[in-house]
């Protein structure tokens, strides 16, 4: 069985600037993989290549068994994606969003109805299904957006800072949803600025200046750096001793 995400020497340059510099890693099916790094380290560029929105300059990557360079359409059909910024249409109702995305993903009317009902039940949104999404608290929007991104039962789901600004209880409920979909076999690729959340991942990588500077289980990464917390590892990688100001902007 091939890995759910398989990345080899993936590189992207913009003019003379190398945003992603020959990164390699793989993520197995059902794994929760945390993709960490400072602002500007290259996370967004790498993620755009993996979801088929940006062509690599060199190297290869396959997602859900499809090459991101040659089979980008197939990649996009087999992944789910949600970000903090864009997820749902605010002026459509909960149910309208489900119907819209179900249609975009090519589900049948019966599938949209059945999966939509199950989704609304699981999220306890029965009394709010006719409400416009803008009236939901952020945490509920994010849980709904995640469920909608899973509507077509993708092999891999990409979550870009899904819990930014979410209250601490809902943030933890969100992570229980992540575990649930991972247990059902979906691979989860997640970025976050909360380093306590990095501890909840099966494995993490930390990007610095376009390269992967650390990778492994949270325990392995901490041991390798002789650090008590991932926060400590992060600080050491992002601001090597003696540098007061950022190395890049």
């Amino acid at each position, binding site marked *: 069985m091939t890995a759910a995400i398989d990345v080899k020497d993936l590189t992207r340059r913009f003019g003379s600037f190398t945003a992603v510099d020959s990164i390699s890693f793989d993520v197995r099916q059902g794994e929760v993989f945390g993709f960490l790094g400072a602002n500007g380290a290259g996370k967004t560029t790498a993620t755009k290549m993996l979801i088929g929105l940006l062509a690599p300059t060199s190297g290869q990557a396959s997602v859900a068994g499809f090459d991101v360079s040659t089979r980008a359409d197939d990649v996009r059909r087999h992944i789910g994606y949600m970000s903090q910024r864009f997820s749902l249409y605010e002026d459509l109702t909960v149910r309208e969003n489900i119907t819209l995305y179900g249609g975009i993903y090519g589900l049948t009317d019966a599938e949209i109805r059945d999966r939509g009902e199950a989704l609304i039940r699981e999220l306890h949104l029965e009394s709010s299904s006719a*409400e416009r999404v803008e009236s939901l608290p952020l945490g509920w929007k994010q849980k709904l957006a995640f469920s909608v991104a899973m509507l077509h039962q993708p092999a891999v789901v990409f979550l870009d800072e899904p819990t930014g600004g979410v209250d601490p209880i809902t943030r933890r409920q969100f992570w229980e949803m992540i575990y649930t979909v991972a247990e059902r076999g979906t691979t989860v690729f997640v970025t976050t600025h909360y380093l306590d959340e990095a501890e909840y991942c099966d494995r993490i990588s930390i990007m610095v200046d376009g390269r992967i500077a650390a990778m492994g289980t949270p325990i392995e990464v901490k041991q390798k750096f002789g650090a008590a917390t*991932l926060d400590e590892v992060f600080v050491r990688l992002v601001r090597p001793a003696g540098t007061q100001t950022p190395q890049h*902007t």
Partner: protein
Amino acid sequence: MTDQPVQRSGSPLEVRGISRRFEETVALADVSFDVKAGELFGLVGPDGAGKTTLFRILTTLLVPDSGSAKVLGLDVVRDLWAIRARVGYMPGRFSLYPDLSVEENLSFFASVFGTSIDEGRAIIAPIYQQIEPFKDRRAGALSGGMKQKLALCCALVHRPEILFLDEPTTGVDAVSRREFWDLLGTLKASGLPILASTAYMDEATRCDRVALIQQGHVLAVDPPAAIAARYPHPLIAVHANERHKLIQALRDYPHAKSVYPFGDEIHYSDARTGIAPDNIVQELRAYLTGRGFTDVRANSIPAGVEDAFMELMGQPEPVVKVAA
């Protein structure tokens, strides 16, 4: 805008019973607190708690439905023009001109307030020196952390007497967040009162006092250590390798009040009163060993602000509404 300290009797910020609705949604409900002279005060709560609405009221951009607020002794409704000249405000959304350079943005904000970069240099120097190497770069091409520093300079260049910062560290990585709070500590040391909001619970400890806010309601106002110290239950940090099973096992324990993951540990609070935490630790170890865990570590710990926040907020409601 004056070099002379302004004489006034009260605190630089007094918020009294502020309420504000948007149609049927309650954004702020009877919010009251003070920011004292020289204080770094944190408004801590998730998105949608009402933080931005409060900032807009305090900076005279929005009128409250009821209640009142005084900024530097001036009324936010009646004295709006006087307030605007004397406060520094960094809105939550990036508010600079992306096509202007770093230096041009700063000159622009200085000129709007009838001053110049040179006149404001003393106060912005510790921050500006970090972005000065990039002063000719377009603001839109700066990294997240650098944009925040420039926005802070622009909010300070007219030498305000109080500073309002709406989520200055949102979307900024952990290291840049820490450096930004270090800068606020430097500013506070110069005597400038600061009201800063954040959704990151860990940032509460960087403030002298905080107001915890959720769904428009203030849950607590105090120094962060005092809020944490009032946590009402025995709290135990539990660690085992199979964390997902551990969470389930702890939730099944008959005396569990709450079970929440915190980094690589689980925080377990006990519903019983009058029982020594060390006894609970012993009980939990025995219980978990009986459930087949072989590598359990459990210790009684003091609560943090995040534990306290979750205790105070209870379960969130799916939709926030009031009767029409």
